[in-house]
């Protein structure tokens, strides 16, 4: 089972890739995550997650154009693969199942 399941942070990164569309490269993902979640996101962590997502086949990457501020180095852009999309949908559905059976009353009582 390990390998098909999405961890929480993996899911977030994958979602960010999807929302950023064609601008999804490591630093941008990092910034976006930091902004949306409000927590400090380390580049090293994002990097290793991206690497893992690619290994699992949930995301793929290609090299882009060189820019001045990166010391002439190209960016690596990520896109979500079909398997990735499927994994995201599955994760959402699984959560929805729980949300659907959670009675409203009980929720308020907490």
């Amino acid at each position, binding site marked *: 089972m390990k390998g098909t399941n999405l961890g929480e942070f993996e899911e977030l990164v994958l979602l960010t890739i999807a929302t950023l569309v064609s601008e999804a490269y*490591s*630093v941008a993902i990092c910034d976006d995550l930091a902004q949306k979640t409000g927590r400090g996101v380390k*580049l*090293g962590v994002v*990097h*290793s997650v991206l*690497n893992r997502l690619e290994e699992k086949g949930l995301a793929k990457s290609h*090299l882009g154009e060189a820019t*001045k*501020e*990166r*010391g002439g*180095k*190209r*960016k*690596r852009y990520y896109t979500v693969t079909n398997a990735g999309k499927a994994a995201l949908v599955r994760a959402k559905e699984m959560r929805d199942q729980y949300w659907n059976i959670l009675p409203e009353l009980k929720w308020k009582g907490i």
Partner: protein
Amino acid sequence: MEGDMTDVNHKPPRWATRFLRWYCRPELAEDLEGDLHEFFQRNVASAGLRQARWIYVLDVLKFLRLYTVRQPSFFHFLTHWIMLRSYLTTSGRNMVRHKLFSFINIAGLAVSMSVGLVVIGVLSDVLSYDTFHVHRDRTYRLISRYEYMGDKGNSFMATSSQRAARLIRENFSGVEELVAVRGQFQGDWQLGEKIVPLNGFWTQPSFFNVFSFELIQGNAATALQKPFSVVLTETSARKLFGDEDPIGKTMVFNKDRSYTVTGVVKDIPFFSHIKFEMLGSLSTLEIVAAEEWRKDAWDDVWNTWVYLRLPPKTELADFDARLAQLSAHEDPSVPDTHIELDLQPMKEIMFSDSMGNQIGPVMGGTLLWVFGGLAFVVIVSAGLNYTNLSIARALRRTREVGVRKAIGAMRSHVMMQFLVEAMLISLCALSLALVCFILLRPHFLTIEPDIQKMFTLQLSPGVLVMFFVFAVVVGLLAGLVPSLFFANVRTLQVLKGGSFQGPQKVTGRKVLMVVQYCISIILVCVSIGVYRQYIHYINYDLGFSTENILNLSLQGNSANVLKKELADLPEVKGMAQSMIVTSVGNYWGTNMRYPGNPLDTIGTGVSYNTIDEHYLPLHGHQLIAGRNFLPKPDSARETEVIVNQQVLKRFDIGGQEPEKALGDVLRVDRKDMTIVGVMKDFSYGRANDRTSREIIFRHDPRQVRWLNIKIQSDDWIATYEKIEAIWKRIDPNHPMEARFYNDQIAESFSGLKATVKLAGFLAFLAICIASLGLLGMVVFTTEVRMKEISIRKVMGASEATLLFLLGRGFMLLLLLAAGISVPLVVLGFEQVVFPNIANHAPINLGEMLWGVVGVLAVALLTIVTQSLKTARANPAEVLKNE
């Protein structure tokens, strides 16, 4: 991100980027580098350049993870293996072709490595101490610090009290085993006609639980239980009983009581910090020494060693806190005294040289650090020589490297080649160093008497492996810079023009030379300086005469019998008796009060010697007032004392006028004693000791242990033999222990002498290495300038001018080295050494300058001989090839 132009120009540290590229997988590297660069620019804008560079470096290190690291390529390894033969061949050829340079490198490394080998040998010896004890890691020694009247001056002693041992055993939970070992079990065993002197300790049955000494006969649990039991080592048992079974045999100790042998212990391993020939049961002391042994006294911390074993994972801080509680509880039992207890791990015992009352000789961490540090300096110096010479010869090797690169060698291959070469040289040096080591070993072991008791410097397989690793590491480090240099050679440039000039920067090499000569000159000056102090101290005017006095240890024999026999010898001009030999580092002290001053209730510590009435005239002590002791029978009470001037000053007796002090009474050792004489001050401790200023002489014939014999003779050896013959008649069992006073003084400074020897030896090595380096540099420079010199010669330059031209640069550097190091040494002696030692001789600059001149003369010889060869060369020979 829109950084302005200045931002973009800031660069992250280049080495960090390189490191990233080196370790990172190629497919990840570009992206990662770009990301880090982007963050770097952001940080420059937000936190400043310094901070940003720092974060960049940290990030590079943080990215060193399993998934980013490049897999080592098997193919690479394979090619290196295949090429190894080629590397070895090339290196071998290169070494043979340049015999002089190879010789310089190998000899320099070998000489310095031999010192390194000695240090490794010593280290390995020290670390193998006590390893045979099964529970070594959990065994501790209870150490104590004695504080009297709030004087915190004392340091920790290896000994502690019997009472502390008992209380810990009874009241402390979590102590697995504990044993008290009491010293001074020494004397003669009598077995029929046979008399055998042995040394050992008094101890308890738990001795064999705490330590792993192996009992081969007898019962470990009971052997040391009953009074008058003794356990012998195998060797002692053989000495006493030969091949007979010793168990159950009885023998008489010191013509007094008889003891039973209850066990035989295997001979003590060499690497044991406790050494003994026998063990007696501690319960014996309760009977034979019931009176003088203050068995349960809290402050009897001078002669008992306590060892204990704690369970694994004991919190030492907790234990220390309990020890502090124990001290607080017990201190009131002895007025004005505080005893601090602590635990010392067994593996630190051999390094605790600052501690008093050791059970045996210890190594001392300081000495090891100093010696290791100096060895390190010498090895680095030789390693730098190698680096230096290799790069200097770049001219000759670059083309070879260029060709290699042109036909496909990668950077790593070139590096490998030069590393292999360096290691080859260093392994050659190792074999030479091993020979040096074997030749050096006996000299090193005899530098100081204690060293021989502590080290063997045996070449065990483990030590040999360490030597090998050491040589490889030295080779790697020495070859690293040359290999990097050659790996960076630009192929095209070298192969096209052949005008490659080698490294352009020579500052580094000049600095190296100056540093090497500084080290040499400093070591030479330090040896000379310390030697001067040594000579000064052994000839120091102590305030009395030590000429022609032979000090003979009585070893329990009657002084009167010996004196009667010795008086017949015509060479013996006089005889005196004393309790200790002063001025050689012996101290004997007691407490003294002056009842004449009722306010002074505390008194002072005073050093003393107990003598007879012949002592003062024999040693030429000067009496300022009063008289010498008068002859008295052995049994008479002690009533008189002779004091020195400092005593009068301390107590302000008689307004410090000697005449008025006579007849006054001092209270010494709870006895009233009348001052009968005042003598001039003299050095009681050693010449370099400032303590023990207040000194008294006491008169008690029963306390004497030495016979001081004044001798006048033309044939010292014959006289000595005559005295020895008399000794043998009186005491056939013990060898005579007699030394001339001046020799004893010299021996008491043997540590200083050993320092001179060591520093001198290291200075010699440093000079060798510096000279070899210089030789290499001179040969190289002159070779390079051969053409220039020839042209100058053709144009009419004389040999002298050429010599001056070639040597000037080097001589200036050497003078610079002298200019730096001599003031450093003088400053070091004046500021650091002299304030800490008393009665030192002033620094003798003249002598040191002679040392410097010596070093420079050797260097000059090196320069001149090589330069002369070049200057004398026939210019036609050199230029005809053009």
